[in-house]
């Protein structure tokens, strides 16, 4: 059964879309990730124009992160003040990101930019995760103590200090704003929430307590991707509601299954699985960039999306 997507202007198999939504839902339930970094490349693979894929997956992330935020708000594990500061940076970053996105789109380079960003980030994150989880498995076998992480660095020497009660921090607002800015930029260009960058940054750079990290990052992601969706919808007209609904239906159901499967697996196994998946997607994208394309030419029109060669 095919469905004609009104904005993407392509006809795609409905079960393929439900399947992608479902798969990403299962993964996000299993690993507790937003899944934006997987949904966008998967949409590329089925022939959705990159601009539509990025904008629509931002919309999708709003859905997958909002229920998380609500759960964390009930448990009071959200640092609202830190979240707001991060968001402030994020909004600026997203606005700049959409500008860059539109400029490169007019040059015909947006496809390359998005794919390159994916290859770099998925490669780095996937690689780090893989190494880290292999080490963790070895460590758990030897059952030695976890190494201490470093405390206090250059972050504490900066001006404009602010007190973050929930996190128990008294630090300058510059690093959180920069982190937010960077994540916002990525969100607009890659159609991701950016949790995979923000969570490590909050733990290692800002020294936030682990229990508030996930909630706070979800809080920022929800608002940020919501803002990105609106920006893409009003400047590029690339949010495809029919596509979003299909992905949502699949995602919502998949997430519930994923949560159950995730509970049965060990944390290290989960992380190795996720890392391999990330590396696989990265390899496929890199392969496409490096191998001689079967069609060297692409058609773009000022009014419509790119056609697949």
């Amino acid at each position, binding site marked *: 059964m095919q469905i004609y997507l009104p904005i993407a202007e392509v006809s795609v198999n409905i079960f393929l879309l439900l399947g992608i939504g479902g798969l990403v839902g299962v993964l996000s339930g299993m690993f507790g990730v937003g899944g934006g970094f997987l949904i966008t490349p998967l949409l590329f693979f089925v022939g959705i124009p990159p601009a539509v894929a990025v904008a629509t997956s931002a919309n999708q992330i709003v859905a997958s992160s909002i229920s998380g935020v609500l759960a964390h708000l009930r448990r009071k594990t959200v640092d609202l003040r830190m979240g707001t500061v991060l968001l402030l940076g994020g909004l600026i970053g997203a606005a700049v990101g959409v500008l860059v996105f539109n400029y490169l789109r007019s040059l015909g380079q947006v496809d390359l930019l998005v794919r390159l960003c994916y290859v770099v980030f998925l490669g780095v994150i996937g690689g780090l995760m893989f190494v880290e989880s292999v080490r963790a498995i070895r460590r758990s076998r030897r059952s030695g103590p976890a190494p201490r992480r470093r405390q206090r660095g250059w972050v504490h020497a900066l001006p404009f200090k602010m007190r973050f009660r929930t996190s128990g921090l008294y630090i300058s607002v510059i690093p959180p704003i920069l982190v937010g800015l960077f994540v916002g930029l990525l969100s607009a260009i890659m159609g991701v929430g950016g949790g995979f960058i923000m969570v490590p940054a909050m733990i290692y750079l800002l020294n936030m307590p682990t229990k508030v990290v996930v909630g706070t990052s979800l809080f920022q992601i929800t608002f940020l991707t919501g803002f990105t969706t609106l920006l893409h*919808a009003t400047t590029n007209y690339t949010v495809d509601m029919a596509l979003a609904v299909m992905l949502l239906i699949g995602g919502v159901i998949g997430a519930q299954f994923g949560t159950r499967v995730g509970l049965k697996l060990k944390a290290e196994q989960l992380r190795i699985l996720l890392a391999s998946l990330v590396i696989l997607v990265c390899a496929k994208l890199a392969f496409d960039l490096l191998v001689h394309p079967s069609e060297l030419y692409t058609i*773009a029109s*000022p009014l419509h999306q790119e056609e697949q060669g």
Partner: protein
Amino acid sequence: MIRLSLLLTLLLAVALPARAAETGEEVVLGLSQQQVQITTGFTGSKILIFGAIKREAPIDPEELEVVVAIAGPSLPLIVRRKERQFGIWMNTDSVEIDRAPSFYAVATSGPLREVLTWTEDLRHRVSIPRMIRSVGAPGEVQDARAFTDAVIRIRQNNDLYQTLEGAVEVTEQTLFQTSIAMPANLTEGDYLTRVFLTRDGRVVNEFETVIDVRKVGLERFLFNLSRNQPLIYGLLSLLIAIIAGWGASAAFRLMQRN
């Protein structure tokens, strides 16, 4: 009054054959559908084009050939070419094409060059390359022709451009029929449908009509909303996402409690 109308009918009756007399033959056309509706389940459409040739004079011994052409709305395009730079393939050169139809199918009753001479093709713009207008390429692009060829190649692969030689069936030099398949990825607009009658490669009669291709229902609504009220559209998308995300977790929590 009656006399006047009688006179008019008489005049018309004289005038019409007189105009047709230059060619002697006229097309009477039928279409299986005058309108193509792009709905949510749209997977393409097959249009049956049939007709008859009305004539006053006896049939010319020279074989009559028929050419049917359907053209989607013409739009400007940018064609980009990838080149290997720093080890990766990226877009480098680009050429702007002034007009190219988003869809074009030409069906003939025989090999195109036999049915239509080169000059007649040029005059009436029938074959695919004639439909693409490219005024000039930037100075640094030497082979602008390759870019137009690429448009034709890509669109042929996607069934957007079709040359169907021998696809028009002509019976007794009077009846003809053909069917043209339109793919799912159509652009909205008026699809100009032209029928040419040719003899010895020359056009003896031409007939034009329009097939209307439109998004309808939900497709129409969403597309219009996204272009005319982008903010409302964006907010609506967000609302759906919020309801879906929040609703799902609430529903599953309820289920687990029971």
